[in-house]
């Protein structure tokens, strides 16, 4: 069973349209302060690179494995959207978008994973909690270069921020979740070509 989508017409068209609607619906639900659109975030992360959107469908076993790797109490969604950036014929990174609750309201962040499987950067796209809950940039810079190890924890290698404890925890959980998914997806059989291309950021 393949992990990445390679649905063909006519079902492929249907599925793509369904996914587009799904994403549009999700974006509308998160009616937060928007700092960056998805396209802007990708352009920021991958200047001059070609970015392709892929859809991955996890098996139940993969979901369980992701939960185990991340330490997250909840199963990750079976549907994973990822954005693979290529430049000069080489993969330069993969971006994931994670929406989660902070306290009572959601935030959406982009987590970019470098080819070695470590975090390259994190950007906040939208944030619905008070700005006082939002850590400063220095907090997010701590994640750069960190792989999925026990050090990726607010109790260890990630220093928390007074007054933003819940955001710090939510961000760190998301980082672990994404790195776990990334590892599983890259351990699965060779991915098929991108299901849909988002184009080259200019």
């Amino acid at each position, binding site marked *: 069973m393949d992990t990445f989508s390679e649905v063909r017409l006519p079902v492929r068209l249907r599925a793509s349209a369904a996914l587009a609607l799904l994403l549009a619906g999700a974006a509308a639900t998160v*009616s937060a*302060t928007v700092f960056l659109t998805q396209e802007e975030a990708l352009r920021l992360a991958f200047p001059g690179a070609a970015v392709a959107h892929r859809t991955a469908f996890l098996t139940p076993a993969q979901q369980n494995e992701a939960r185990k790797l991340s330490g997250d109490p909840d199963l990750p969604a079976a549907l994973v959207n990822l954005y693979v950036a290529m430049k000069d014929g080489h993969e330069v990174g993969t971006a994931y978008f994670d929406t989660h609750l902070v306290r009572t*309201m959601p935030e959406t962040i982009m987590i970019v994973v470098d080819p070695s499987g470590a975090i390259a950067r994190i950007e906040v796209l939208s*944030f619905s909690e008070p700005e006082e809950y939002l850590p*400063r940039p*220095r907090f997010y810079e701590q994640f750069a270069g960190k792989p999925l190890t026990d050090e990726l924890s607010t109790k260890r290698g990630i220093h928390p921020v007074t007054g*933003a404890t819940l955001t710090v925890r939510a961000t760190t959980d998301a980082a672990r979740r994404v790195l776990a998914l990334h590892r599983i997806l890259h351990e699965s059989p060779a991915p098929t070509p991108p299901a849909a291309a988002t184009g080259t950021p200019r």
Partner: protein
Amino acid sequence: MFVIPRWVSVGLGMLLAAVTLAQAPPPAPTPTPVPGSMEERIQRLEKLLAETRAELAALKAAAAGSPADARLAEIERKIDILAQEIEAIKMADAAQGTAAPAPTTQATGTGEGPAVSIAPPTGTAQDAGQRYGLGLSAAKVYGLKRGVSIGGYGEVLYQNFASKSQHGEPSGAQDQITDLRAVVYLGYKFDDHFVLNTELEYENAVVASDKGGEAEVEFAYIDYMHSRPFNARAGLVLIPMGLINEQHEPTAFLGARRNDVEDVIIPSTWRELGWGLYGEAGPFAYRGYMVNGLNAEGYDAEEGIREGRQEGSEALAENWAFTGRLDYVGAPGLLVGASVFTGNSGQGRFTPSGEKVHGATTVVDAHVDWRWRGLWLRGLYAHTWISEADLINQLNGFVGDASVGSRQEGWYVQGGYDVLSLMARARASLVPFVRYEEYDTQKAVPFGYERNPENDRQELTLGLVFKPIDRLAFKADWQQRHNAAGTGVNQWNLALGYIF
């Protein structure tokens, strides 16, 4: 002593409002709308999936027994996953009680900041960009929808007092358990710039003539969100001093009870009516407000200025005060800064002999909070100066060792360590901690009065805080409470705290 005439205070407020409004940025760019409501989109998606399923069923019937059959089964599985995702979205929408896109103001708490505020508003793309290290063209801030928000926190506290005092006398203290606080946050976002934040609090469960409960508005203010460096706030505001006053939710501090230095010297939860600015510049965060002054008629020897707080309840406004803080927040895990409150407290009163009481009162503090891995260290020093303490004594009829302290002082250091940080991937936390504090509300008294050694206090607290999840805290501690008179009474405490 810094004394602010009333006309200057009012004038500054009007000027501030005018300047702030004059700098209002143009309306936010409107995001491209997605046609239809969430409900409509889901309906379209469901219809599309239903058509896809039907088409798939037809294909399966045609391909029965062929290799394509397995392929179609996989496609069917994927469609099922999409359907589950739709279901999850629908449930989330229902949970928020909205058929249309969700409201955007926030339920919040002082444990992590004021109740409701919104990240950089309309026209602040540049600030957002700076915040996240983005170029101006890459960062956009879109308009927000409107809505009401709700949140809160609560505490239950059990106190068990020693039967004997420090020097072996019967203490007479009775053990007590109480629903100490039940708090609701309500917020409302008027538009991209103006946000209302409120905290409504019940203390000790019942408000009645035969009970000790209180119903209070802890804060209620309007935020004007302009930009990262400059935002304005007006209303019943929390005095921005120390480490507890603005972040007093039970999950945000160690100990079943708040530390006493920040209960007496900095009388948390301290709030007054006023207006001011707040924001961040570089690695620094600041707040500065003009507020109504304290009322010296509430000062006393044991609790210092605590009962001089006016709490927004028919507050006397003959005297005004300035309060502000500056923190370095440039390094994750570290907060270090200082704060001040200064202004007269006489509120136009005269002593029985006819002397006008000014009662200039200044409180300063320096504080540090540092978290590194499982370690959490915190320290604070606070000092209060009260001029004309002798006139305040005359005003209040105090004699002898009942004098108001002309100088008051307190400090504490606290250290805790999350032992579960030693376990990989532990989500819960278990923090044994120790705190030592000293405070004296009569560090100095006016000539002709005496100090009461009971007000020179030292406390040692040994405790444990267990958080199974971030928003729940179970606490236990033992407190050695001594004073220079030997009449202190030790106690141990249990507490349950929650936020939502």
